[in-house]
Each structure stands twice: as structure tokens, then as C-alpha cells.
């Protein structure tokens, strides 16, 4: 608890020792008064002020209270009192410092944890979806703008009173170059979702589900959403890209949370994992909610790029999720729940050969 600046802390130490000295005489309780002064200095000032107040108190104690003439028989008692007083003040100082350090380190790690939570929960949505979309749009827009200008320039050379074929040809060649660049950018984006760019490792789907629930716990409790999990214990691990699969599950769960934000009554997010019933070598994951459900008459469109029912949505989440699942050789589809809500079904083969 660092509430005062350094200078203020030392000032406080001096003032509290002064007050203690002034009070100690009349009520004849020097140790209590000085102990209090040391405590106050340590609590609000920190280690330095605390040590200063110990020194000041010891001086004052020794000078004003032990310095008084006393019968020789009491000399040793006085010294003992002084020693005990000194030990007590130092002990208080040390304890205060230990406590403060513990508090500081706890609040630092809490802050770091909170930040990590927030960052991870939004990494998928904001960074990957939003920024990727924006920078992709910018990258593709650039050559398209150049192509439009070059095509118009070409027309201008051709439609002059004396058409200039050479200039027109040059402009047309630039159009071809522009369009080729746009196509290259698109093909690079495609590659991102291809197998080659993925980091394949053995992944435990249940572990990913649990991790994502932990990450979203705060959001879930803020929205008063109960989570129910039915995770099959003996699931085989699958070969896949852990981060991409995390993104898919995170995205489905965030969609469910958003779908339940404005509904009355029961809010429940259910996540199941099991072996697919008909095919042994497939895993099935089900994410279902009691939210607003799929948009009527438009259920097929939810996986289209740029289709969104949210005011702040990018319309890329489900599109990208489906691409990721398909690149793992699996399928992702949605059904309506009764009486309300939606379910997202995700199958992924556990055999490597099944990959596309």
C-alpha cells in the first residue's frame, strides 16, 4: 500500500514521532505512543520512513524517558525496556515490509492474469478476424484501384481523335499486372488455411474445450450463463493445429454467448464431445445454446463471408471457422434447437490420412 510519495512518507514519520513524543509525556506511555508512530509510518510511508521513525523513536525514548534520573536498581530494567521496545519497532517494520511486498506481487500477478485473460479472449475476434479483414481489404484494394485507373487511361488513349495504340497497350499491360497482383494476394490468403501453413501436433480436444471455458469464465458469469459439459473420457487425440482449433471453439462459444445476451429465461451453454456414432474415426463436438437461434430463412447464409447478425460483427468468424475445420478434413454445420437456441456440430477425423 503505497499511498504517499517518498518525501511525504518521511514527513509523516517525523510528524508522527513528534506527535508521539508530545503525547508520551502527559500520559506516560512512551512505548505505546512510539509503537503507534512506527506502525503509522510503516503502513503509509513504506520501509524508509518506517526505519526513520524507529530511529527517531529510539532516540526520543532513550533521551527523554530513559535519561531521567532513576534509582540504580532500576537501571537494568530500563535497558531491558529499551531493548524490547527497539525489537518490537523493528519487528513491526519488517512485518509491514513483508506484507507490502506480498501484496504488491499478488496485485501484479493478478493484473497480469487479468490482462492475459482479456487479451486471449479477444485475440481471435479482434486481431485475427478484424485486423486480418481490414489489412486484407487494404491489400486487395490497392491493385484494384490501380487497375481501374489504368483501364480508364487505356480507354482515354483509344478514344482520342487520334488513338495512340502504343500508349493504350502500355496501359492495358499495367491493368494485367494490377489484376495479377490482386490474384496473388488472394492466393496467399488461401494458403494460410491450407495444410502447409498449419502446425500439426497431437491435440486433446477435451483439453481445448476446458481451456476455452476457463478463458471465457468471466464473460459467462457476467452474462449469467450456466455451462454444462459432457466430455467423453476416452476420446482419441487428433492430429491438428491447436491454435486454429482453439479459435474455432472460442468463436463458437462467443457466438453462443452473444446469442444469449438479450434473451429472457434459461441461459445455458452446453458443450459435448464424443466419438461420432456412425464413424469410429471421427470426433464430434457439439456447442449448443439457448439463445436467439439461427436467423429464420437465412440459416444457410451464416457461414457466408460478411454475413452477420451482430451489430459489431465482421461476418468472418464462422466462415473462417468452417475453413479451419475443413482443412482438418472435418465438417461444421448448424441446426436449430427446440424450443430455442442453436447447435453447432463439428466433426474432425482422428486419422491423419483423412486430411484433405
Amino acid at each position: 500500500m503505497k499511498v504517499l510519495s517518498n518525501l511525504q512518507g518521511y514527513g509523516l514519520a517525523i510528524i508522527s514521532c513528534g506527535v508521539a513524543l508530545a503525547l508520551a509525556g502527559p500520559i506516560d506511555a512512551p512505548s505505546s505512543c512510539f509503537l503507534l508512530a512506527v506502525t503509522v509510518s510503516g503502513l503509509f510511508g513504506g520501509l524508509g520512513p518506517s526505519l526513520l521513525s524507529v530511529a527517531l523513536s529510539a532516540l526520543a525514548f532513550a533521551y527523554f524517558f530513559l535519561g531521567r534520573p532513576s534509582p540504580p536498581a532500576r537501571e537494568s530494567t530500563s535497558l531491558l525496556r529499551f531493548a524490547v521496545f527497539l525489537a518490537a519497532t523493528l519487528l513491526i517494520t519488517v512485518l509491514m515490509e513483508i506484507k507490502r511486498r506480498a501484496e504488491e506481487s499478488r496485485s501484479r500477478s493478478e493484473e497480469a492474469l487479468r490482462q492475459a485473460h482479456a487479451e486471449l479472449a479477444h485475440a481471435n475476434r479482434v486481431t485475427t478476424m478484424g485486423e486480418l479483414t481490414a489489412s486484407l481489404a487494404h491489400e486487395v484494394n490497392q491493385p484494384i484501384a490501380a487497375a481501374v485507373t489504368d483501364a480508364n487511361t487505356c480507354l482515354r488513349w483509344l478514344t482520342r481523335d487520334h488513338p495512340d495504340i502504343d500508349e493504350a497497350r502500355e496501359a492495358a499491360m499495367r491493368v494485367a499486372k494490377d489484376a495479377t497482383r490482386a490474384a496473388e494476394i488472394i492466393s496467399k490468403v488461401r494458403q494460410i488455411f491450407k495444410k502447409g501453413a498449419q502446425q500439426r501436433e497431437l491435440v486433446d480436444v477435451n483439453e481445448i474445450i476446458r481451456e476455452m471455458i476457463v478463458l471465457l469464465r468471466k464473460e459467462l458469469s457476467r452474462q449469467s450463463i450456466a455451462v454444462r459439459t459432457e466430455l467423453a473420457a476416452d476420446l482419441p487425440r487428433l492430429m491438428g493445429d491447436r491454435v486454429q482449433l482453439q479459435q474455432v471453439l472460442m468463436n463458437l462459444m462467443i457466438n453462443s454467448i452473444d446469442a444469449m445476451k438479450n434473451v429472457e429465461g434459461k441461459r445455458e451453454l452446453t458443450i459435448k464431445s464424443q466419438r461420432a456414432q456412425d464413424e469410429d474415426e471421427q470426433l464430434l463436438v457439439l456447442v449448443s445454446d439457448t439463445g436467439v437461434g439461427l436467423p429464420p430463412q437465412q440459416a444457410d447464409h451464416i457461414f457466408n463471408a460478411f454475413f452477420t447478425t451482430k451489430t459489431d460483427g465482421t461476418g468472418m468468424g464462422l466462415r473462417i471457422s468452417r475453413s479451419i475445420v475443413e482443412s482438418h478434413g472435418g465438417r461444421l454445420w448448424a441446426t436449430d434447437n427446440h424450443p430455442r437456441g442453436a447447435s453447432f456440430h463439428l466433426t474432425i477425423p482422428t486419422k491423419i490420412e483423412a486430411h484433405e
Partner: protein
Amino acid sequence: MAIQEKNKLVAVVDDDELMRGALQGMLKSVGLPSQTFASAEEFLNSGQQRQTACLIADIRMPGMSGLELQAQLNAEHCRIPTIFITAHGDTKMRMQALRAGAVEFLAKPFDDEALLGSVRAALEN
């Protein structure tokens, strides 16, 4: 490119090579000589500011941005009629550019005729 009339030079500052080529080609097709620069720094170091009658600049570029270039030119009392073209201009950016003396602010892809109209107007003044 030959500079026929020094005071009629149009400068194009854009980090995108295709865009520079497209703008230069467009200007050539209406008989306007131009010179292109890949960055704001390159333009400032070229010493061509005083001969430039009209500047077409991108906003977002590596290094100095188009708006910073405009501020730098203003600071040098080098008032070149400036047309900004940008892929993602918001209203705030637009207002800032126009307040600082830009004559036009166009979104990519832009209308050629609108851009040429602004260039001609800048050259006539």
C-alpha cells in the same frame, strides 16, 4: 520524362508501385508531365517542392505519412495544392487534411475525372 513547363509539374507520392505507374499514366494521357516518388522523404529530399504545381499523395505510407508530409511542407512555407488519395480515409482524417489546406480527398478506387478535375483546377490557380 521531360519537364516542359517547370511550374506545371505534378508530383505523385505513393509507396505502391502499381499506383504510381497508374497515376503517371493517367496524367500522361491528358498531357500532364509528372514525377513519382516512393515516399514522402524521397520527395522532400528531391528538391522538387518548389517546382511542383500540384501534389498527389497517399496518406498511409511507411515512414512519413501523407498528412505529415503536408505539415512539413506547410512548415517550410511551401504551399502546394495537395490532393490526397487513400484506401481508408475516415471523416476525421479528411477534415484534418482539408483544414491543413488539401484541395481534395479521394478514396481508392477513385473517379479519374474527379481527380483530373482537381489537378486541372490546381494547375490553373
